[in-house]
């Protein structure tokens, strides 16, 4: 029985699909990672237009107050198991917009991320490396951070 479960974890981890949802500027480098030079499809990643088919939600940079409900709703629409990757400085602490009060400074306190990718914006290589870390997490059978806690469970959206 254990072996079969391992197989499913392996299969899940090798075809990660991203919900196609951009909240900020880092999506530009995400597009570059999809491009021919970096070509993330080599590793089994692919963007999908609907959250219903997605395994990974990327917080691409800043999260403004206005887009947060849409982000949470997108996350809620994704089927389990689902993982969150936070791109860039903004999704960690507001980054360059830390002084701006239209932007949420700690989106990952609301929606905890499994992997942080550093940079402003992160380079495509870093994005692919971050997704490899998600793969590793799935293979080790570690549950996603957002399923364990986070403010989003108490919020209405």
């Amino acid at each position, binding site marked *: 029985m254990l072996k079969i479960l391992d197989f499913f974890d392996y299969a899940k981890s090798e075809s990660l699909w991203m919900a196609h949802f*951009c909240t900020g500027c880092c999506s530009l480098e995400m597009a570059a990672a999809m491009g021919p030079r970096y070509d993330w499809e080599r590793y089994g990643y692919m963007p999908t237009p609907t959250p219903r088919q997605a395994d990974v939600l990327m917080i691409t940079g800043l999260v403004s*107050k206005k887009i947060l409900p849409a982000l949470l709703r997108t996350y809620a629409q994704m089927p389990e198991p689902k993982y969150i990757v936070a791109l860039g400085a903004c999704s960690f602490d507001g980054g360059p917009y830390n002084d701006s009060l239209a932007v949420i400074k700690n989106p990952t306190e609301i929606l905890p991320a499994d992997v942080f990718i550093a940079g402003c914006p992160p380079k495509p290589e870093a994005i692919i490396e971050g997704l490899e870390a998600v793969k590793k997490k799935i293979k080790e059978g570690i549950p996603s951070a957002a399923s364990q806690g986070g403010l989003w469970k108490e919020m209405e959206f």
Partner: protein
Amino acid sequence: MEHLKELISRFSCAYVEDYKKIWIKAKLNSKDDLLDVAKALQTEGLRSLSTVSPTDFAEDGIMEINYFFEDLDTKRNLWLKVDLPRDEAVCEIESLTPLFASANWHEREAYSMFGVRFLHHPDLRDIIKSEDFRDKYPFRVDFDWDAHEKETVANVQQIVDAFKKEQSENEVDLESDSSETILNWGPTHPASGPIRLRVHCDGEEIISIDPDIGYVWRALEHLVTKKDFIGAIVAVERLCFMDNINSMVGYAMAVEEIAGVTITPFASWMRVLLGETARISSHFMGMGVFFNNMGLHTLAMWNMDTREFFLDFLESYSGARIATAAIEPGGVRYGLDMRMFDELQKALDKFDANIDEVEAIFVKNPTMRMRAAEVGRLSADEIHMFGLSGIVARASGVKTDIRIDEPYAAYDKLDLEYITQERGSARDRFVMIFEELKSSVAIIKKAKQHIEEAVANGEMNPTKDHMVKVPKKLPKGEAISRVEWARGEVLMHLVTQEKAKSPYRLKMRAPSFNHTMMLDYLLRGQTLSDIPLIFGSLYVCQGDLDR
């Protein structure tokens, strides 16, 4: 110009003076004259209102409104000021929207951020700012941001409640037995990016569109006032990452004007070179988005391939592919190692090798031609009326290009010509991007050659000439600067106080704001499937739409 000056002088003005080469700066004594002035200007031919920018002088109790009128044909521009009382109850002025359609959203923005009420505005609602700022005016100097921020979760709840209320009202407002519905296009639509269009449609046919923007609102114009003049670059370049160099050039020019600094020839040529590189990287994305929105992803991939080589050059120069922060007041941030031109040469070679194929397959593509040649058409008159700029304006045959009209950096030394298309359809705008891509590469080649020759002659020193010192504290003053951005005209209006370390007010007029305003106008009566196509052809970036 003299005629225009005389025309303004007929009204009661505090001053009327020449400003730069093609501007006249004037201040009205009374706000009651505004409508008459505006009518006279319109008859005179200044048909576009570029933007409306309030400056809040809290100490004097004055809200100063700046209007920027432009004539895209004869290149005469007017910067008109008028003072209002700052007190919220009486801070009001006649709206110019009935005369200048382009004022519509700009006045709404001034109302949302500063609480200036525009009388007889057809649709004075909040724009950009989120629901938690309702009846609060965040850009006023005395707005307490810290108190507002403490309630983040409650603020988000307010946004959610407002959205749900709107959705439930939609269902009540429309009759249950009709085929009308209100559809949300975005912000999770793959072609939309962070924008939501409220599409009121009857079956397939669109009745009206109300864009809901502000999903990436970062209050950049307020953010810069918390940073020093160098630190503000971080906010300015994030206007939109696709072409960040030219927005920094605009900001740097405004600071230099107040500081009274002239940059070196080397720095001005580097600004051309880097600016065109960023323009190319943006245009590649723009072309890709256009085809992506029609459901064809190949061109985006091809373009991304070539674009990477141009980003390599930016990376070798500044250390970053996109967030370069390479332009600073006083010149360009880094010296140039001539070996960096090898990277640029690689990019140019790659471009030359690919471009014919792109043209043959995509630009002359018969399917695209049939699909896009008749939709989203804009006439030259409409360009003037709605104050559109950049490739959208030139695709309709309007000869406007700030690199030629009001040359900055080293553009006056380049022999540039207007590139235009005739019919103003979605396809023309696509072809326009492509033609401009080719002209940008030609400019880069010239600039590169010029720098190489000047360095070889010893006229320029690439490691030392890049920077002129700009004082950290600036005198009291104000300046405007305009640059031709990848997407159109960016107008920066910078105000400083005496011995200031940071900007007092920076207004960034960005082209996507006007272009998004056009969606409702262009899409009425069209079908739902035209939305992505026309939206893509307008070359909108949400970064500079929301700021």
